[in-house]
């Protein structure tokens, strides 16, 4: 557990940002990750008073405050209706209900964890990250950025709905995933596929493939060969490469089924 001497319940983003410029200050999201460290900090900055614990349905899509819990995402009706129940499916394997009532989407995205189920799904939905003060940036670019002292304010999903499917594999329930994939379909039928827990950070599959491609499976294999996979204590590299193909084919089958229901 970390230690801290002061607590600041920020009354504005500017106040939080100014306080966060000191090296000894830290923003607390859900604290689940932070508490595993032993850092000695001067000030804890809490964003709880800024109304960032809400999911708003906007004209463009969804706006999700940084302090929204993983459980809120998992159980939010409109969000799950819009995205084929993908948030419920992707987040429910993370530890347990009590944990997901604590962990926030802000902390999950800020962490840019390789194993993230959350980022793999958001990446397939073309999510954007609103930072204070620098503004909105694509999640794909954000996860490549070095850590700085900004505030993650919101996650934006620029779609009112989109067919999307997620698949993950765990060695044992509640453990970190061995591999996570997600796939969504653009309006013109192009697939946007992502692979996470490789075990490195999630990436998009580098190919423009269509759901109606007659030779989709072969094209998918060629594209997956371009993505680096590595081993860690949970699985080897070859197994991950194999899983990526199996799980993405399952996700694609799910999307085809969605499509046939919709027609």
């Amino acid at each position, binding site marked *: 557990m970390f230690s*801290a001497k002061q607590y600041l319940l920020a009354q504005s983003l500017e106040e939080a940002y100014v306080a966060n410029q000191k090296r000894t200050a830290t923003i607390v999201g859900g604290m689940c990750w932070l508490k595993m460290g032993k850092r000695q900090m001067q000030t804890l900055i809490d964003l709880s008073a800024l109304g960032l614990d809400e999911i708003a349905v906007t004209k463009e899509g969804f706006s999700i405050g940084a302090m929204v819990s993983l459980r809120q995402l998992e159980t939010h009706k409109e969000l799950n209706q819009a995205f084929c129940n993908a948030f419920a499916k992707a987040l429910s394997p993370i530890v347990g209900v009590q944990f997901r009532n604590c962990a926030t989407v802000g902390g999950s995205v800020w962490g840019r964890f390789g194993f993230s189920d959350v980022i793999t799904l958001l990446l397939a939905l073309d999510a954007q990250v609103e930072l204070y003060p620098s503004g909105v940036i694509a999640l794909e670019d954000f996860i490549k950025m070095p850590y700085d002292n900004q505030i993650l304010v919101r996650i934006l999903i620029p779609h009112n709905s989109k067919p999307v499917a997620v698949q993950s594999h765990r060695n044992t329930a509640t453990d970190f995933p061995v591999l996570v994939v997600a796939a969504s379909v653009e309006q013109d039928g192009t697939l946007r596929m992502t692979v996470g827990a490789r075990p490195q950070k999630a990436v998009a599959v580098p190919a423009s493939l269509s759901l109606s491609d007659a030779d989709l499976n072969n094209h998918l294999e060629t594209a997956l060969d371009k993505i680096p996979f590595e081993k860690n204590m949970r699985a080897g590299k070859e197994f991950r490469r194999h899983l990526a193909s199996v799980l993405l084919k399952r996700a694609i089958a799910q999307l085809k089924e969605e499509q046939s229901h919709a027609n």
Partner: protein
Amino acid sequence: MQIELTLNGRPCKAEVTPDTRLLEFVRQQGCASVKCGCETSNCGLCTVWLDEKPVLSCSVLAVRANGHKVTTLEGLQAQAAEFGAFLADEGAEQCGYCSPGFIMNVLAMEKELKQPTEEEIQQYLAGNLCRCSGYQGQLRAIHRYLNRKQEENHE
């Protein structure tokens, strides 16, 4: 710093340091049912309700409870005893170490889910680890507990 909250239905005012966790705070207030079973937010033993939602008290700052309602097993004696009897009947408790957190989460599930399926029950309780049992006794006890009204009507 000073925090004010409702703990098990009673108003409570206390001094805490910024890095005090809700876990240590409720124990200082005499709620010894709440225990720390791991260092990684994985075991569920420390479960309490924060405004009716089950949370891991090991992963919540005490200051975050300021102005809120916190409930521990000490505040749910009657319900805990009722469900506890079902656990005992099914021989589900072995050493009993995991029970306080487990019971808090079962009671939270009962409030949140209406007629949950087996899968929903398992998913809701996945974050409560038990080192002794194979969870089968607990699942039998939960089914009987959730169906107790029907069982009573049959008798």
